[in-house]
């Protein structure tokens, strides 16, 4: 069963900067503004097609600006594609960046409810999972303290505890596993293994090839908005690393 399917998906952004200069200049030069909006496009994804089956863990790799995060945003339904078709079957739970969506004046417990409701659950559903989330986060002594008293490691633990206790069907993970101490990372890894056993679909964006190799069944390699390669981590990651090294070596003489 397919859980995520991209068919010839293209995504571009107009240069919104020309608008953000202000009403006055964009109205005074209205024809120019409209022309620039049409012409100055930045293509982020170009006719990308792939299919992710239920229960698969797929890693997106590629250099900065390859379109990895845009792909995740399309899966989460946060942005819309200009061309092609995105279909997602199942409840998507994005694993947020450290602290995003948290409110620092509220307590840990209040943030759990806020976060859970924002991610699509009702209050009843969040409250029924409250104890499990608190237990997993190991933050019981300070759960009623305002979040601004937490350390960044504690916030990361809270975020992961929430996302992992909400029974996601599709989990989108954007560079989050590199935060937190070793104990937290081990715990994350154990939880992700559990998700794999439960056949939860996961899409992971990471620059840590060790993570990708360890966790992913399949890797999609993006570069400049196109798919360069798709396949087993063991074959694709060495190729990606080799190409990055080659480019680095190429650039070095010109930089000197």
């Amino acid at each position, binding site marked *: 069963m397919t859980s995520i399917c991209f068919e010839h998906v293209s995504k571009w952004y107009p240069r919104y900067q020309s608008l953000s200069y202000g009403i006055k200049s964009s109205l005074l030069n209205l024809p120019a503004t409209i022309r620039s909006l049409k012409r100055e496009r930045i293509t982020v994804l170009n006719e990308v097609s792939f299919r992710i089956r239920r229960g698969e863990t797929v890693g997106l790799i590629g250099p900065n600006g390859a379109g990895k995060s845009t792909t995740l945003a399309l899966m989460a339904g946060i942005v819309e594609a200009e061309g092609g078709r995105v279909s997602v079957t199942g409840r998507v739970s994005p694993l947020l960046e450290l602290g995003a969506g948290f409110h620092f004046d509220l307590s840990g417990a209040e943030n759990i409810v806020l976060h859970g409701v924002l991610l699509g659950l*009702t209050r009843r559903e969040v409250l029924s999972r409250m104890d499990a989330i608190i237990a997993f986060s190991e933050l019981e002594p300070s759960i009623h303290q*305002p979040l601004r008293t937490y350390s960044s490691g504690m916030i990361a633990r809270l975020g992961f505890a929430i996302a992992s206790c909400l029974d996601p069907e599709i989990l989108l993970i954007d560079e989050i596993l590199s935060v937190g101490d070793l104990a937290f990372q081990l715990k994350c890894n154990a939880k992700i293994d559990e998700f794999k056993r439960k056949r939860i679909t996961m899409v992971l964006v990471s620059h840590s090839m060790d993570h990708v190799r360890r966790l992913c069944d399949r890797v999609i390699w993006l570069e400049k908005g196109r798919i360069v390669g798709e396949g087993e981590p063991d074959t694709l990651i060495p190729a990606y690393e080799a190409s990055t090294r080659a480019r680095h070596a190429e650039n070095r003489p010109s930089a000197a």
Partner: protein
Amino acid sequence: MQAPSISAAQETITRDVYWEHLWDLVVILTQKEMKSRYKNSALGYVWSVANPLLFAVIYYIVFGQIMKVPIDNYAAFLIAGLMPWQWLANSVIAAPHVFLANATLIKKVRFPRHVLVVSYVLNEGIHFMLSIPVIGGVLLANGIRPSWSWLFGIPILLVAQFLIVYGIAITLASLNLFFRDLERLTALFITVLFFLTPITYSSAMAPDSYRTVLFANPVAPLIASWRELFLHGQFSWLVIGSCYLSALGTLLAGTFVYWRMSPKFAEVV
């Protein structure tokens, strides 16, 4: 250009709890606003009432005592208009910033974004409701007794004002993501609107030629209705009808702008 479709399966899962979830979102975000507003201030509630009271005192001295506006019970007259105005002005001034202040959420999570504006306007509305006892106190001090008609008049006007303010706020909040200097224009707009709305004066005092301008102001019938209700315990269905007509207008504008622009929010915020 072909619209992407999130397949039907995702929608059906959430449908049975859709309204409960939407309600929970509104409640939780309104609570968040309330808490973050009062968390670090000892005098929380006092502050939100002190501001309009201070202005009432200033206008009372300047217009009532110095310029001698020929209105009976001018203090009560001012308070009855200023308190509801405060709800409108605070919400509208803050509106351009609502989506920007929640940029991280909008970029990362898929949820109905207009709820952010709903909860903001609601939050200001709750403050207005909490200030109704203060209005009552000022009226009593001026020998005006609260009327039974408040019981159904207040809810009718609360709903009308919420809809009007929400319509304006969602329009400004959406547009400001694309035209950032709207924020500054809004502050000017509110100042102009304040003096074009019969708050410090009554529309009966305006010369005929200006009365059409006042008539075109979508907010004027609302403030006039509040004042009629508070001061005389009565309201005209005709004026209330025009309040709801304004509400329909701002809602249509707001819904259209939001509907056109919200798919791009995450890209520009």
